């Protein structure tokens, strides 16, 4: 089998074009289930009342902020080693999404913190390392944009991305290493410490956020591809 087919820009463009409508419908359904189930049907928390419902945005965005970075780092490594154009484009397309997810996690977290902890912000290990993650995303974008030659900029920024990956385990384990205000993990494969009626919409929201990010990244990557390959024959064919 010729696996090179799967990384060719043309194949990616055609295949993603076919998948996107179905993915979008599925994502909308998940969003609908997560939002209605989370905001209307899940019972209020016995301590936090209705305030806990921000979890349905906060947890998925925080999860995505780290997942996006990991995915970008994997693509960056692939692009540095094998010089695959598509991997590069994926990294670049994912960076703004990751930055926004991180910002969203920080904003919803501080909105949640005000009524529950009594403060918008606290210099807690997890909050601080999430803030560093935002700086890493912005640093990637700044470095990439500083280069005139975008291929060179992409390679330099990819290296920065890989150096910054040290931060991911620190964020993930910060709540275990330092016993801080931010609570530990509530969702586990077995024995989640959260009621099923609250958990199921949350899982749906996480899946919906993942698919939503994937869709936006793919849409951006498709645009980028058309732009970069604008001289290729298949592009003329695709847009005519």
């Amino acid at each position, binding site marked *: 089998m010729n696996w090179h087919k799967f990384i060719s820009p043309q194949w990616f463009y055609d295949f993603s074009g076919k998948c996107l409508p179905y993915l979008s419908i599925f994502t909308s359904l998940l969003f609908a289930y997560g939002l209605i189930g989370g905001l209307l049907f899940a019972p209020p928390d016995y301590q936090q009342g209705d305030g806990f419902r921000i979890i349905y945005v906060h947890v998925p965005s925080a999860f995505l902020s780290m997942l996006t970075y990991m995915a970008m780092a994997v693509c960056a490594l692939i692009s540095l080693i094998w010089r695959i154009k598509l991997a590069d484009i994926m990294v670049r397309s994912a960076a703004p999404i990751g930055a926004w997810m991180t910002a969203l996690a920080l904003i919803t977290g501080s909105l949640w913190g005000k009524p529950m902890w009594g403060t918008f912000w606290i210099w807690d290990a997890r909050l601080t390392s999430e803030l*560093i993650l935002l700086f*890493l995303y912005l640093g990637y974008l*700044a*470095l990439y944009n500083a280069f005139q030659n975008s291929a060179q900029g992409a390679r330099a920024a990819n*290296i920065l991305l890989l*150096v910054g990956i*040290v*931060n991911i385990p620190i964020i993930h384990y910060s709540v275990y290493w330092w016993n801080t205000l931010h609570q530990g993990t509530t969702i586990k494969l077995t024995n989640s410490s959260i009621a099923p009626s609250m958990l199921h919409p949350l899982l749906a929201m996480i899946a919906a956020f993942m698919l939503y990010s994937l869709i936006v990244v793919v849409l951006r990557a498709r645009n980028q591809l058309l732009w970069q390959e604008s001289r290729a024959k298949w592009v003329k064919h695709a847009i005519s």
Partner: protein
Amino acid sequence: MFYRILIYNLKLTLRQRSDWLNPLLFFIIVVSLFPLAISTEKAVLIAIAPGVIWIAAVLASLLSLPQLFQADFIDGSLDQLLLQPEPLTYLVAAKLLAHWLTHQLPLILVAPLVGLLFQLSNHSIGILIISLLLGTPTLSLLGGIIAALIVSLRGQVSLLLPLLLLPLLIPLLLFATNVVLAAEQGFPINGQLALLAALMLLAMAFAPWVIAIALRIGVEV
């Protein structure tokens, strides 16, 4: 070749006295601003001393790091370095060692005096020096990575370097300042010192290699 590059870079910096003296003066001035601006009370001084000294050391190295590879890039000697038969990783390590000796070591030598200005106890000053000895190599090495990544960007280097470097330094800063505060309060500090040493060894093992890759990307235009 390692020693040649080391000695060449040392000579180059030492002959240009402002190169290593200005960051040192900057360090001392920044540090002495804080008591004036915040408070001269002993308790406050002791509480802020490790953070202030460490932040000033980081800021001082921001002055010298942009020049680390860029001067060589502009006059073409970086291309010569890349063409050497010896592994580039090795040569980069020599340059970094020279940078540490000329830019970080003077700060460490002055740090006891600064510690006295901040009313730190002798024990804490000792710990401060150890934290600087273990931490500043990491600072130079990480700074070297960023300096290598942006070596070919002429105008914006001095602004981009801090933006990219400072977030990466936060864990180092946390451990390094915590260790001095813990020592001042009489807590055990072996764990934090071990972590600082681990960071340094990790940076020593990987940074020269990453810098070599970054330089090759930067030079190839």
